């Protein structure tokens, strides 16, 4: 079953100074439970693509289907994680985690219970009455993930969700979030600038060309490592090979 199907998407931004073609004829699909990563040069339209998939933005042409349903607006199936955690300083961690449910008017006993379990599982339950500025970067990112997960999304869109973290924390949060996503059997699309991050986490990598973004290549990632966690997989023998290939395709002339 296809969780996401992107068909012939093109996107032009209009302004008084002219028009920018951000995306051109993008097409791909993502299977249920699959972890797909999108890489591409800066400004090639990655964030635009996620916004279109989430229904926040409607494309100039083309269609997106989520589990066979055509996207016309935002959907409860999608959980969207942005680059920064954007926890609200005026809300406690608990209140932050409940934000999505409040907006969707879905604050039920079960939902609260789910939030409690998620907070306990990811070591934030004792901090639920704290304010975000009392938490470390990694904890905040986990709180942001829980805020997304309590709304029970089938598909997670991660837009450089880890790039605000320092390298050490980032590797740890990668592992955390990867295991959460796999355990809960969610579908994920991760946009990143970090080739290593994308190889270590993704089942498939979609490489976009520079603007206007088009699909340049799609890589199946098959790594031989015993315990499939992003950190372990960085040691896999195939890792370098993928890295070099994608690096070449990204065509970064320094």
């Amino acid at each position, binding site marked *: 079953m296809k969780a996401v199907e992107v068909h012939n998407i093109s996107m032009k931004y209009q302004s008084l100074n002219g028009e920018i073609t951000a995306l051109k004829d993008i097409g791909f699909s993502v299977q249920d439970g699959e972890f797909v990563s999108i890489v591409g040069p800066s400004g090639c339209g990655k964030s635009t693509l996620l916004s279109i998939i989430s229904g926040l933005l409607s494309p100039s042409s083309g269609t997106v289907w989520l589990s066979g349903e055509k996207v016309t607006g935002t959907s409860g199936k999608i959980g969207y994680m*942005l680059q920064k955690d*954007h926890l*609200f300083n005026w809300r406690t961690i608990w209140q932050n985690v409940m934000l999505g449910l409040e907006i*969707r008017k879905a604050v039920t006993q079960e939902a609260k219970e789910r939030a409690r379990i998620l907070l306990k599982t990811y070591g934030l339950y004792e901090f639920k009455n704290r304010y975000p500025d009392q938490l470390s970067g990694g904890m905040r990112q986990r709180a942001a993930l829980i805020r997304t997960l309590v709304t029970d999304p089938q598909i997670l869109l991660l837009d450089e969700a880890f790039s605000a973290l320092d390298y050490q924390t980032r590797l740890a949060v990668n592992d955390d979030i990867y295991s959460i996503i796999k355990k809960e059997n969610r579908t994920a699309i991760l946009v990143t600038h970090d080739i290593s991050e994308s190889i270590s986490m993704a089942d498939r990598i979609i490489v976009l060309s520079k603007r206007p973004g088009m699909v340049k290549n799609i890589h199946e990632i098959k790594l031989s490592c015993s315990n499939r966690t992003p950190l372990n997989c960085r040691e896999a023998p195939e890792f370098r090979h993928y890295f070099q290939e994608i690096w070449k395709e990204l065509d970064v002339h320094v």
Partner: protein
Amino acid sequence: MFEDEEENIPAISQALNISLERQEYLRRERFGKISVRMTQILLLVLALVLWEIMADAKIIDPFITSQPSRIVKTIVQLYKEGVLFYHIGITCLETIVGFTLGTLLGTFLAVILWWSKFISKVAEPYLVILNSLPKIALGPVFLVWIGAGPASIIVMTLAISLIVTILEVLNGFWGIDQEKIKLVQTFGGNKFQVLTKVVLPASFPTIINALKINVGLSWVGVIVGEFLVSKAGLGYLIIYGGQVFKLDLVMTSVIILGVAAAIMYQGVVYLERLLVKNNDLKY
């Protein structure tokens, strides 16, 4: 406030076994604070004493400059006549109504301008002109339109504070991180939810700040209003005292005004600390 610290610091330093250098540092800090406060009090006392003596010695004419003992006498007399708190009360009430209304109405109008790009674009030149107009010039107009009463005075304070509030708060709204708004939208939030979940709470410090500015502006509006309307209040006492050449009354009213304004400002600062505890500006 520093009286508490004065008692606490040595106790804490002993309890925590703080190093000698630190004790010395804390002692010097405390000494510095005390000397500043002492000098402030001394200056005030000196000025008052000098004022009193010079007036007694007829170096300055107490009929024109008044003098501290006469001011005290005037306060006592106003109190005995039973009008002291009446005038203070009226002026304070008008001011409080003025800045509360100014802040609420200003925030409400800012919300409308934020909501509709079209309305805000249309309103822009008018706001710019109104903002640069000296609003006091409108006083006589309000007097004719609304009549000589508290309503005119409140409208005067609104005229002074409203535009500034709108611009200030609207700027706060526009300065909010777009990604925070996007976050609410990713959960399917509509414009009203963007307003209530992000825009208003994130702008809370800005609104409190506008309130602080409005306290000062409202005093100006109220006093000018009372000058024009001349029925009651401290502004009325000042104008009346000037007209009948009772400078004692004028000076007394000005001093009471200063004290009342300072107390009210401190009240708002206290309110701010109470409300903005977990809402610091670094979002």
